[in-house]
């Protein structure tokens, strides 16, 4: 679509007009406008989205409705039947306002509910892809190249700071755990190889609809503990391992956990949607690669770095802790498997 003509627009008013909504009050809650009207409360999301992306989002939402996946906050059409309204680079869509509950009528563990519903989403959208060794090889090579590049970057950084007479607390912490991170890189690469070998042997691979950003902030809980996913803007057809890894990574960063809990979440997921062996390896390779740790270095060395040394060290230590937990989780999952064999 070509760009819009800006006729001294007041986009929010013009957007709400297209839904026949007459707001009594508008609050800004994160990236969403909470619109109070006489006929109810609505959430208006403003986002940067191209035409293709918005068409994809509409397709995803309609598909979820068609296949009967109800754990989604629906997108409401305008009075003209449009699901996404576009103003230049900005896009708007409207949802009913779902109050997010943190206290429930009976004991609920949000992570458990989320992982189960993600499994249901994957199960309902599972599709075996036409086997193409070329595509597999390409995916493998792309990821491997990226990891090699990241590893080199970090080795270069480690070499550089090792030459310093005085190390900052952050640099010291990084160097202390750097070898351990390299071990995780090797583990990630090993699992990645296991994945490609398994997929090649099987001569098949499957895709599911991945939410793309599964996290607590993109989930609304009702008072009974039912979760509704929202924000499918980054949804994509991909391996379930990717979405699951993203969700686990989010869990790891949001609260303390241990390998038993990790195993429990994986077990819950697999109760609804069992991963193939090679997919489990891919999942583990995604988790094992210490990208999050390396991102702390990126942030620390950026010129516009605004966090204090203490904050940087605390963040890094947290990530080291997560990395070690992932290592234990990884070992426990594959140890269990070898015992079962």
């Amino acid at each position, binding site marked *: 679509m*070509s*760009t819009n*003509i800006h*006729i001294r627009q007041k986009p929010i008013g*013009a957007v709400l007009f297209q839904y026949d909504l007459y707001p009594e009050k508008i609050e800004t809650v994160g990236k969403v406008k909470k619109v109070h009207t006489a006929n109810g409360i609505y959430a208006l999301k403003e986002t940067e989205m191209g035409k293709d992306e918005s068409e994809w989002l509409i397709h995803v939402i309609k598909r979820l409705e068609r296949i009967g996946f109800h754990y989604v906050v629906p997108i409401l*059409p305008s009075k*003209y039947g449009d699901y996404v309204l576009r103003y230049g680079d900005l896009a708007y869509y409207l949802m009913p306002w779902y109050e997010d509950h943190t206290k429930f009528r009976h004991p609920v563990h949000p992570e458990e509910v989320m992982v189960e519903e993600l499994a249901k989403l994957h199960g309902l959208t599972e599709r075996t892809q036409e086997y193409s060794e070329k595509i597999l090889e390409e995916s493998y090579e792309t990821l491997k190249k990226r990891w090699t590049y990241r590893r080199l970057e970090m080795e270069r950084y480690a070499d550089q700071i090792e030459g310093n007479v005085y190390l900052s607390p952050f640099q010291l912490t990084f160097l202390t755990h750097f070898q351990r991170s390299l071990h995780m890189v090797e583990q990630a690469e090993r699992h990645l190889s296991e994945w490609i070998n398994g997929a090649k042997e099987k001569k098949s691979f499957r895709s599911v609809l991945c939410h793309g950003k599964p996290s607590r902030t993109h989930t609304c809980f009702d008072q009974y503990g039912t979760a509704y996913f929202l924000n499918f803007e980054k949804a994509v057809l991909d391996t379930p391992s990717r979405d699951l890894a993203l969700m686990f990574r989010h869990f790891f960063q949001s609260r303390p956990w241990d390998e038993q809990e990790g195993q429990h979440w994986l077990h819950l997921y697999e109760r609804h949607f069992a991963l193939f062996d090679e997919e489990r390896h891919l999942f583990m390779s995604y988790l094992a690669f210490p990208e999050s740790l390396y991102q702390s270095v990126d942030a620390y060395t950026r010129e516009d770095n605004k966090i204090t040394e203490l904050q940087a060290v605390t963040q890094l230590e947290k990530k080291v802790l997560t990395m070690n937990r992932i290592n234990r989780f990884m070992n426990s999952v594959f140890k269990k498997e070898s015992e079962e064999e």
Partner: protein
Amino acid sequence: MLSLEYLQECYGFNHSKWKINGEILDTEKGVKRLTNWTEEKRVRWHVQWRDQLAEKTGCLTNRMIQTIHGERIILSDAGWVTLHDEVTSLFSYKNRENEIGAFFGRYFSLGMQDVDTEINDPYANNKLKIYLQQSFLTKNSTEEMRFLEGIRRESRLRYNKAKEIKEKAGGKQEPIVAPIRSLDQGKVVYGQFYWTNLKGRPEKGYGSLRNVLTEWLQRYGQTSLFSLLNEIDKEFSLKGYHGKNLLAECLTPWEFLEYVMKTRDVHEKDELLVWKEKLTYQWEASRLLVKALGEWLDVAQEKVTV
């Protein structure tokens, strides 16, 4: 006529009452207008036109509101019915040449050339040509006949010149658009431009653009018109054959045809006088527009005069 209850059910209104019976509805979702259509293909073309216009320009237009079941058109005993917002506040175009020029540029370059319904092509019938060919003078000519004959001769000169320009420009693809009769079709809602499309047949050619430019020149003057043309040109190239064809359209003496048609059966002197005044007014408006357009197009060598 569709009942209020039926409409409420179709569109999911909780409360509604007629403001004008069968035409304007007052609902909790604002004031709505019902439009009746007698040709299905035409209403479908208008649905598509308005959707595309809204998408391409990002401006609000009187698109068809859908029912709770997602239908944009409903059936009635007399044909088809659509529902629209009733927006009445007029838009002020002053100092808005950039935005409005872009809007009209996109309007005329929308490219909905495949039309499955009857279109209005003013050149398709020969009425104007016929009236221009025969003299109005007889042995006992009245003053009115002599006036008509004078106008006919002037009009024929305009017509021939227009024909010549059109032929030189080449018979390439002309736009097909929803007809525009007045700039007053531009309204304002929530501070935003809202365009009210008319329900007439899709129109081929440059008649609607001529209406826009004539009114613009009268309201805002030549400098503003040039700015508007510059903006239109960015979206709908007027420097090429469209500009020449537009000039030909402005030269074509449609006001003469209208005068002849309207006054054929008029015998009242006062009424005739009103039509004459209208003709003089339109003739002068055409003259000024052709002059301005000619200047903008820099076609002085054509020696275009009215």
